[in-house]
């Protein structure tokens, strides 16, 4: 414990690139520039309460929740297969699973665009079959698809690592006490995997609620999410104060959801990510 100084470079880094910018964002969100100089104001936050912006917040949360639920439904069985003993080609499976993650996130999303386009792979295939083309790209569904595709590993991996650590003798004990396969899952495996599920949910929900790239590429700018809104304020409109206020609101949303999660986790005696 005498080697505290080893952490100093990181502390400096944190102060310069995390703490200071956060302070700046907070400062911007609470001030406005007038002819007499800086003035403190809550006007930016009040402005966010207008229905048009609340709708954006609502849509962001809704799409992120959708994606999280789909990731959970797809990811849990996947994690169980990976953690189970019955599966012989586990290594190959994990490899296939990780390969796409080596590719840049943007490229992967662009790849989906070429698949979903009017003249893309799927519609070309449909026209071969003599079917009318579908409107796939620039829909809410496309945005959710992009989120699920990109964030699914973050659901699978924490669940997988928790499942793998469950003591096999607990499963045997449950069987011994009369539990069939499904009851073992319901009463032992699932409750014990909750910490993994919760950190999976957190790790999918957070990036999904804040993304702006996926919604822009696959939503074609029709589905403005809170991330897009912030980007617009900073890069297009140039209203840094309002952009900062939205950022603060978003952080609040995230903090609240983390708080809810960690409270739930404590009740379950779990040890998750936070």
């Amino acid at each position, binding site marked *: 414990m005498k080697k505290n100084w080893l952490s100093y470079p990181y502390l400096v880094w944190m102060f310069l690139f995390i703490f200071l910018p956060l302070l700046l964002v907070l400062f911007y969100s609470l001030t406005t520039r007038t002819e007499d100089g800086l003035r403190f104001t809550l006007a930016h936050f009040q402005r966010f309460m207008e229905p048009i912006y609340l709708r954006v917040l609502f849509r962001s949360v809704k799409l992120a929740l959708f994606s999280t639920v789909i990731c959970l439904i797809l990811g849990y069985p996947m994690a169980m297969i990976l953690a189970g003993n019955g599966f012989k080609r586990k290594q190959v499976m994990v490899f296939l699973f990780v390969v796409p993650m080596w590719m840049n996130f943007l490229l992967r999303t662009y790849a989906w665009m070429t698949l979903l386009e009017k003249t893309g792979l799927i519609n070309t295939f449909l026209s071969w079959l003599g079917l009318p083309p579908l409107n796939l790209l620039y829909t809410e569904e496309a945005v959710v698809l992009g989120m699920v595709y990109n964030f699914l590993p973050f659901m699978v991996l924490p669940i997988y690592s928790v499942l793998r650590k469950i*003591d096999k*003798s*607990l499963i*045997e*004990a*449950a*069987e*011994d*006490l*009369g*539990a*069939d396969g499904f*009851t073992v899952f319901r*009463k*032992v495996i699932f*409750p*014990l995997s909750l910490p993994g599920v919760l950190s999976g949910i957190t790790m999918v929900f957070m990036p999904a609620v804040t993304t702006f790239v996926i919604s822009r590429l696959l939503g074609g700018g029709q589905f403005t999410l809170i991330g897009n809104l912030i980007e617009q304020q900073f890069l297009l409109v140039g209203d840094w104060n309002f952009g900062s206020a939205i950022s603060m609101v978003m952080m609040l949303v995230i903090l609240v959801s983390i708080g809810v999660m960690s409270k739930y986790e404590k009740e*379950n*005696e779990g040890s998750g990510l936070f």
Partner: protein
Amino acid sequence: MTTTNTGGSAVQQNIIELVDICKDYNGTEALKNINLYIRKNEFLTLLGPSGCGKTTTLRIIGGFEEPTSGDLLFNGVKINDLPPYKRRVNTVFQKYALFPHLNVFENVAFGLKIKKLDKKTIEKKVRNMLTLVNLAGFEEREIDSLSGGQQQRVAIARALVNEPEVLLLDEPLGALDLKLRQEMQIELKNMQKRLGITFVYVTHDQEEALSMSDTVVVMKDGTIQQIGTPIDIYNEPKNAFVADFIGESNIIDGVMLRDYLVQFAGLDFNCVDRGFAEMEPVDVVVRPEDIQVVAEDESKLKGEVKAVTFKGVHYEMLIDSTAFRWKIHSTEMAPVGAKVGLKILPDAIHIMKKVATK
């Protein structure tokens, strides 16, 4: 080698029978032709060093492993591939395997809830069982707030509350300290008598096996070496391995000269064994407490004391004769360097057939 129980009266019913059970793990034979009958209400112990197949045998009875060949009968019905949750058998696992996400009450109630008993019955049964294992008042406690001995008792309660016909125990006392272990041995034995449940107990601790069991099954390398009462096993070990494993022994090469006369350590000794071929090489087994240390001129077998260790109740002495180093337990001590005589009475000499060497 196959062995079967002997001496059971015809009235007693076999609750579990293992008939010619073999178990292979990827070509390694874990069990070789195990034949074993477990009688109703007996306390049977599978005893042996690690890797002898005792836990595998238990897991086959519990339903966690399927035998490669052979039959497992429960009350006369073959149950080879019956899944564990359908067997009228419950297990106390080696490391207890208590559910960490449930409290003491919920752990014990686990099996009853699955059977969908009504709430009141469950509550009553769980409380009775917790009282039986001296854990009344611990209902709401979390598992990881309990000591090893308490967790142990929760595991026993969790299994017993289902009123199994057979309780399997896989080295349940292994993690406890000596004193607690001895207390729990007595408690377990009492519980078994009171509840009239068949116990199948796995251990590598010979003392534990001898003090608790009605029947001891000594195993080695996937085969049964001997089945018998603790007294039989201790006094009449069938071979040198059993003799060595059950308590300490002096095992020395000998030659059977004729019935009741054996030669070892360069001398002839009267013994009580017969039925060997003339001049047959044998293992001679003598318990350390069966050798008397006498004055040098009182015995033909002489030796020099090389080491003395105080063991509490007795002294352990290592005494070198010309051909062999004897281990002797005695309440009287001879000092290191003393020249002494060793006296072995005929009924202290156990003659064993040589086991074919590998």
